[in-house]
């Protein structure tokens, strides 16, 4: 047994590894597709107005626990349809995730380019900010900012955009420095191009692939942070709802109506699990070092 595993550990070419449970990866991809599609078409598929209160059907269980087809995922304490609320929550979480990821990438990349271009003390200041952001747990920073600036959706998205900006900034800075040091970027600058032209037209397209990989890592992380904050009651505020907010709300009915909490929990966990599985699979396929 030991001997056999040895030889496997020693052959470090990815081609020699058997494809690792592609079925799981397929399922993960399918789940993510459903997840994102749901968010995109939410308005058209919800069976009920998610705010419609039906006190006669309070806390009715989902199908399988004695529920009826009228509310396949059950209802909450005010008789609101769980399925509709879940769909809208997914839409909210995905929108926030996309917005914050995009904004964070923009801010981080710009700061990285600025640091690479100006050097000197401005670069040092940006590096100090990067250090600070990387050192402090994001949830703690977010908590501090959020409760004091208020709870509007725009502020919340901007705050979440701060998650991961330092990664883009680091990548953009180091790639821009290496591009500037020699090669195509300095050649174009030498043609008389304005620095903005060089960064926008040459350096950005050349670093985009790396940045996009970073964004796909950030996106699920941001959704998780969003859920955590909303769970604490400090994120998305009623009447809006998000996955984390639903979990937080369902907590009060843990004993009587566990489905109120379980449905959104399941959706979040499966989302994170899918992204992780796909990420691992991609890494095993494309990274020769087999991490």
């Amino acid at each position, binding site marked *: 047994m030991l001997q056999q595993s040895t030889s496997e550990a020693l052959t470090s070419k990815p081609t020699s590894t058997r494809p690792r449970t592609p079925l799981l990866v397929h399922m993960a991809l399918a789940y993510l597709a459903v997840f994102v599609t749901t968010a995109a078409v939410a308005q058209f598929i919800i069976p009920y107005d998610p705010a419609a209160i039906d006190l006669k059907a309070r806390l009715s269980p989902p199908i399988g626990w004695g529920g009826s087809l009228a509310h396949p995922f059950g209802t909450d304490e005010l008789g609101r349809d769980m399925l509709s609320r879940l769909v809208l929550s997914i839409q909210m979480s995905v929108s926030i995730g996309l917005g914050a990821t995009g904004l964070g990438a923009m801010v981080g990349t710009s700061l990285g380019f600025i640091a690479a271009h100006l050097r000197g003390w401005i670069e040092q200041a940006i590096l100090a900010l990067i250090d600070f952001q990387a050192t402090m747990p994001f949830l*703690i920073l977010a908590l501090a900012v959020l409760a004091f600036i208020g709870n509007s959706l725009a502020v919340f998205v901007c705050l979440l955009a701060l998650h991961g900006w330092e990664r883009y900034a680091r990548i953009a800075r180091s790639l821009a420095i290496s591009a500037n040091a020699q090669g195509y970027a300095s050649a174009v600058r030498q043609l008389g191009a304005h620095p903005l032209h060089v960064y926008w037209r040459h350096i950005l397209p050349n670093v985009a692939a790396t940045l996009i990989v970073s964004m796909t890592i950030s996106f699920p992380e941001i959704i998780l942070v969003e859920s955590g904050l909303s769970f604490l009651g400090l994120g998305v505020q009623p009447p809006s709802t998000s996955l984390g907010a639903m979990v937080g709300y369902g907590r009060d009915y843990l004993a009587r109506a566990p489905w109120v909490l379980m449905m959104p929990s399941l959706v979040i966990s499966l989302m994170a699990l899918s992204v992780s599985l796909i990420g691992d699979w991609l890494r095993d396929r494309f990274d020769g070092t087999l991490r």
Partner: protein
Amino acid sequence: MAWFALARFARAMITILVVVGFAFIVLRLSGDPALEILSNDAPPEARDAFRSAFGLDQPIWVQFFDYMTRIAAGNLGNSMREGRNALAVVIERIPITLALSVPAFLINVVIGIPAGILAALHRNSLLDRGVMLGAVAGFTIPTFVLGLLLVLVFSVQLGWLPSGGARSWHHAILPVLTLGAGGAAVLARYTRSAMLEVLGQPYIRTAHVKGVPWRLVVYRHALPNAAIPMVTIIGFMLGQLIAGAVLVESVFAWPGVGRLLVASVVSRDLPVVQCVLFLIAVTMVTSNLLVDLLYGLLDPRIRRGGQA
């Protein structure tokens, strides 16, 4: 090495300065705590008295300078809610949080590291896949979801354990498990990849090909070398001992630092929030600094190459 240590120390101090500045700017610029703490119909004189009592009527830079001086003197102001020294309010919560996070950290290490090593040594076996799937599940399920799940099963359904509070050690079991599972999963993955990295190195193959028994290769060469990158993740986890429990403490109503922070944020108790932030910054920065220095000692390449 002295220079390397000094440079790292300077960076750590700068980070702490940025944290203090950040905390100050965000917390002071964002509203009028006098309106929050006192009721809306409090007379204006009472508000003014409140403001001047906490120095809120001073120009912002004076407030910042005062704050810095007070930090240097170890005085972080009084809690607006409790009227006591904020630092004392925070410090008395630290052991409560550590009562959760230290056992959880032990679980991380005791389960995570062996699981990762075994998975790496038996790469692609059923064991490996089982461990990795468990690890992925463990760290992708958000801690608050996992915590509530445990409550649902062990408190609501089975009735074995309390769902919240901190009256006895029974109350600690579920939060410790919740915290421990996530960390163990992260550590298992990290250990596995560190081991695989080392096992793929030419010197391991050489040792094995030369006829050194595989068991010896693992103990003498692979494990010590894989331990070097492990320093980073373990240092990070130690830094998280206080900061990492915010959500879990909220789920289980555990009266630690995290719960204090959330409560203080909700009630806008500025000195306490700043105090917690500062405390967490110091622990994170210190652990990062120690990791850097330890790394420099363990791996001379870092020391030489990393000082630019």
